[in-house]
């Protein structure tokens, strides 16, 4: 029973991480429908920016974390403005944008590897506290991962519900064409969701840096799990992305109870297939056409 409790807590922790990444990815993907593969290396970039501020520059950790989040937001906006916007302007097929994004993905991933090297970067002076809850063990960073989801998720929900920008984002997610017609500046709004989504994704990136360290390849699993969380939850539903992410984390960790660990990483995809078979539009998808 203790083992199950531990696996459950681990599942919630990892699930919170996936959910947060899914929120970042979904916030961009929902309104823009850009299959933003470069989301992965931008996430890695945020972690490396934080590491650069914390280790070579020796800045205090909160400052370094802020640098990481800012780097995430800025690189997200630059990516939209420099890479995606030209394609958008000439109304390229979504396939073209997707391939360009994949191109940027490999450029950035490998560029990070060339600049920083392939070894794992850690913030050595940071040591997470170990917290004991009965028989269940977790660290302070893991607690932050869950707390970050709760705080950011709540703030984002409030923002989308009550602010004008938030309402406009929801409208654009529902129907971009209609949003344009009623006079919403979709370019500006897209810039905003790239900034917000990338900044949100930078938070789990920084936490992973503190937890396990950063590698050039860390972005792949981020964009992939974010994407899967969004599809499982249902495109266009951020609540779905959160629940999708949590479900992935739980299934992955609880699966480890019975399934050999080397297969752990594939469990998520089995979930993906099952959801697509049983609920093709995801758990919270926006109805049939």
């Amino acid at each position, binding site marked *: 029973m203790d083992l199950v409790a531990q696996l459950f807590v681990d599942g919630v922790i990892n699930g919170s991480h996936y959910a947060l990444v899914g929120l970042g990815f979904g916030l961009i993907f929902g309104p823009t429908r850009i299959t933003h593969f470069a989301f992965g290396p931008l996430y890695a970039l945020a972690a490396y920016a934080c590491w650069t501020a914390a280790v070579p520059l020796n800045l205090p950790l909160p400052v370094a974390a802020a640098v990481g989040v800012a780097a995430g937001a800025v690189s997200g906006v630059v990516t939209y403005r420099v890479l995606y916007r030209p394609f958008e302007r000439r109304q390229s097929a979504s396939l073209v944008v997707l391939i360009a994004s994949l191109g940027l993905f*490999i450029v950035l991933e490998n560029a990070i590897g060339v600049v920083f090297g392939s070894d794992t970067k850690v913030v050595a002076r940071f040591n997470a506290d170990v917290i004991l809850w009965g028989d269940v063990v977790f660290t302070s960073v893991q607690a932050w991962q869950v707390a970050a989801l709760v705080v950011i998720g709540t703030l984002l929900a409030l923002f989308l519900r009550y602010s004008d920008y938030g309402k406009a984002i929801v409208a654009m997610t529902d129907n971009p064409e209609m949003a344009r017609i009623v006079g919403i500046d979709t370019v500006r709004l897209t810039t905003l969701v790239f900034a917000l989504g990338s900044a949100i994704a930078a938070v789990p990136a920084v936490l992973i840096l503190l937890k396990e360290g950063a590698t050039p390849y860390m972005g792949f699993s981020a964009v992939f799990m974010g994407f899967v969380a969004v599809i499982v939850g249902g495109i266009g539903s951020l609540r779905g992305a959160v629940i999708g992410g949590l479900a992935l984390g739980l299934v992955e960790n609880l699966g480890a109870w019975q399934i050999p660990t080397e297969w752990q990483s594939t469990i998520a995809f089995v979930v993906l297939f099952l959801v697509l078979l049983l609920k093709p539009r995801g758990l919270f998808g926006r109805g049939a056409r």
Partner: protein
Amino acid sequence: MGYLLHILVMVSLYAILAVSFNLLIGFAGLFALSQAAFFGVGAYTTAILATKLDLAFPLPLLAGVLLTAGLGILVALPALRIGGDHLVVVTLALQIIAVAVMVNWRSVTGGTDGIAGIPKIVLWGTALDSPARFLPFALAVAAASVALAWRLAASPFARAVRAMRENELAAQAVGKNVVAIKLAVFAFSAALAAVAGGLYAHYIGFVSAETFTLDLTIYVLAMVILGGTGNLWGSLLGALILTALPELLKFVALAPDIADKSRQILYGLALIAILLLRPQGLVGEIPTRRRRVVVEGHGPAPLGATAPADGTVVVEGRGLMRRFGGIVAVSGLDIELRRGRIVGLIGPNGAGKTTAFNLLTGFLRPDAGSVTLNGVPLAGARPHQIVRRGMARSFQDLKLFSRMTVLDNVMVALPRQKGDNPLYVYLAPWVVAAEERANRQRALAILDFVGLGERAGDTAENLSYAEEKLLVIARLVATGAEVLLFDEPLSGLAPNTLEAIFPIIRRLAESGKAICIIEHNLDVIRGLCHTAVFLDEGRKLVEDAPEKLIADPALAARYFG
């Protein structure tokens, strides 16, 4: 010398892969990220069967091809039914699972050690154990693969694929099963990748999971994009350049790790640069020639088999209801369409007229109510099935296949084409060729019937607005359906053009078609329809003879009010 020949063998293998990927991306407009996995499954299956069961070439390779195609179908089916971005994420998942299986299923795949000692191919007593001996064979297989792909791309099947790529809804509306089409291309593409994989296993003699990762998919993607997605030759060129280029780069002295990463960066930059600067790639799409179309002798009857225009009820809709969110678009609608009769559907904007068409033709499912066609319920039938059973519709916004020729727009809509089935294309090409000749005559006759015979060889986007409207009618007639639903076939036309189209629609009715048209112009309703149905806020208010309906002051107030 051996080195150069080795490079050429690799070019041949990559050419097969690139062509297989281009079929998916360029030809069908589908995007998947699992080409490396298919290549790998083909290679591993070949390796396992050849080493563990001692099967001789070509059995292991064929088994690999079948397994891979089956796997592709299994994985893609749920995603293809939904469409959109799902295929990307599902194939990405497949790619990752495939590599995980290769690494973790140690008893069969050898785990991280891979499988070594795969026997060479022996042909007519000669082992193909050197690049020089393997190259002719590799070239032959590559040529055969390209020929197979090319044959497919020049068949009636390809016409259906192009139509689907241009407009999926319209392709369904002319009776094409778009899911089946996508699945066929996907399976074919996967199978071709597996052929390359099987050859690779035999040639190298060793397989290992790290060869078949996403990086390889991206590498092949770069070949396809560099060459251009518009035609297959581009992929050959792309494969040649991107196989040779890294070999040349090897002469630049860099640390191996950095060199590998720099190469990846180069591919990525190349992808972006090509898409920005020359999206059509090195070899652009070969423009469709403006074909001269010659009619030989008298064409067949344009309308095919006719039925007596005797007023028999063909379509019966009962209590149709559909809501969107809180809004009721159609409510309690009863409608009957009879052989030889033209029913006009009128009412203000938002009255639910187009929704009614969508409900009748399966593009929308009714929340309540039922539709029968010749007494057979249509519940659950998909749009292409309903077209094949005999009810077809046009769209208010035309949805022509605008980059296809006028003739192809009509030919693609002709029913029951054997050439739509790739098996016929390959196994009975003469049947397909004969059918094509007949269909061409039939399509020309239909074009003559609407008065577009002269424009058969033009691209649809070059037509005038009135001609576009005529082509919509021709395409709808070509489906051979006995029930034709026209969504505003005459809107926006000048009066003299109207006069020219009236007789066409009348003759359709006289030949026994049951017709329903949505129309705003009351003159059209009066001049054409036997009965008119007035819809408002999703309900049928009146059904009567057009003159009486138009004379009703209460309706006029609603209509114009």
